[in-house]
């Protein structure tokens, strides 16, 4: 008989195959969406938290988790969506931040939105293409709720920036 903690470690390992539906280089673990894995009485439960309240990808993520675990023989996995703790971009792992940058999405800085952000100067965002810091924001809202639209003044490439929340 496999002991529970070994099984849970194995499940975490398998879950690394589940990628963000919109950003296929980023695993849900690196995104920080998967919070808990528990195995008890032969049942596996995975707890996920939403990135944004209205994120339409949450259902997709749930299905992908069940599918990947099913392919590894875990037939009765349950996915529970929880609101607490509130997801922040600080939950993205170092590996996740690097993957975003290499994929062409400027990663968020390591600091959570606060009141100063509201009226303060926006932080510097580095162009993921030419690495220049000379960039400007085009719109606070980009192609998905979690991204803002930027443009590099030096190489003229538009790019997505993963918003800091």
């Amino acid at each position, binding site marked *: 008989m496999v002991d529970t903690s070994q099984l849970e470690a194995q499940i975490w390992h398998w879950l690394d195959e589940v990628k963000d539906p919109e950003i296929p280089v980023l695993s849900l673990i690196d995104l920080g969406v998967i919070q808990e894995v528990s195995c008890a009485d032969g049942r596996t439960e995975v707890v996920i938290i*939403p990135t944004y309240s209205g994120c339409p990808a949450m259902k997709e993520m749930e299905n992908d988790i069940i599918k990947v675990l099913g392919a590894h023989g875990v037939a009765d996995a349950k996915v529970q969506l929880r609101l607490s703790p*509130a997801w922040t971009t600080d939950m993205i792992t170092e590996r996740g931040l690097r993957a975003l940058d290499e994929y062409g999405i400027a990663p968020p800085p390591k600091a959570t939105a606060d009141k100063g952000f509201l009226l303060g100067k926006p932080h510097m965002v580095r162009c993921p293409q030419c690495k220049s810091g000379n960039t400007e924001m085009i719109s606070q*809202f980009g192609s998905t*709720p979690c991204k803002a639209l930027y443009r590099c003044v030096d190489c003229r490439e538009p790019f997505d920036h993963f918003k800091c929340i």
Partner: protein
Amino acid sequence: MNLQEARYRYVLRLGDNALVLGHRISEWCGHGPALEEDMAIINVSLDLLGQCRNLLAYAGRIEGKGRNEDDLAYLRLEKDFTNALICELPNGHYGDTITRQYLYDQFNYLLWSELVNSTDTELAAIAAKTIKEVTYHLRHSRDWFIRLGDGTDESHRKMQQSLDEVWMFTGDMFATDDSDAHIVREGIGPEMASIHTRWLDAVRATVAEATLNMPTGTWMQSGSRIGRHTEHMGYLLTELQYMQRAYPGCEW
């Protein structure tokens, strides 16, 4: 009114606000004045619909009659909605939409900043999520409000007119009823009067920065807490609820 009813009404109103305004601004989809703004305003709409889902689902659990978020959104009548009147107003031109959005976002930001500390742990969890999104909403609408007010002669004139016309609907955002006494006493939500004072201070500063004048009208529309709406609400619900009315129980 007992505490459970008060909690239900309070959370329901928060959910109705998000649902009705979120639905209203979703009408801009494909019609925004510029591609970036089209995406921005419907991203705000999407956030509001997500918040509405969390809130209405929670309201349904408090009520305890087995109604879920879909039942509450699609199967209630106009008089059962208690959203603030400002949420249901037609979009008008983009300056009208931005003016309403700024006035509402400023209120919403102050309110959710307090709800983060609610003694109701589930509401506090929703608030922790919501406040991050609402901060972006306020930043967006405030920027545009100032940019258009302090813009060309034409945009300045239009923004002053938008502000003057929507002003009589702002008082209703802060309306309270019997349930609020319970809510404040239990530490579930803040005193509306204090939110109102802080809102006025913030709005005054933003209006000045936008080189506009504060409206002089003092008469305020009211009625949302008792389900009395503007003439626009019925049309909004007709569209929002069409599928469930035409095909009861329809799922996809």
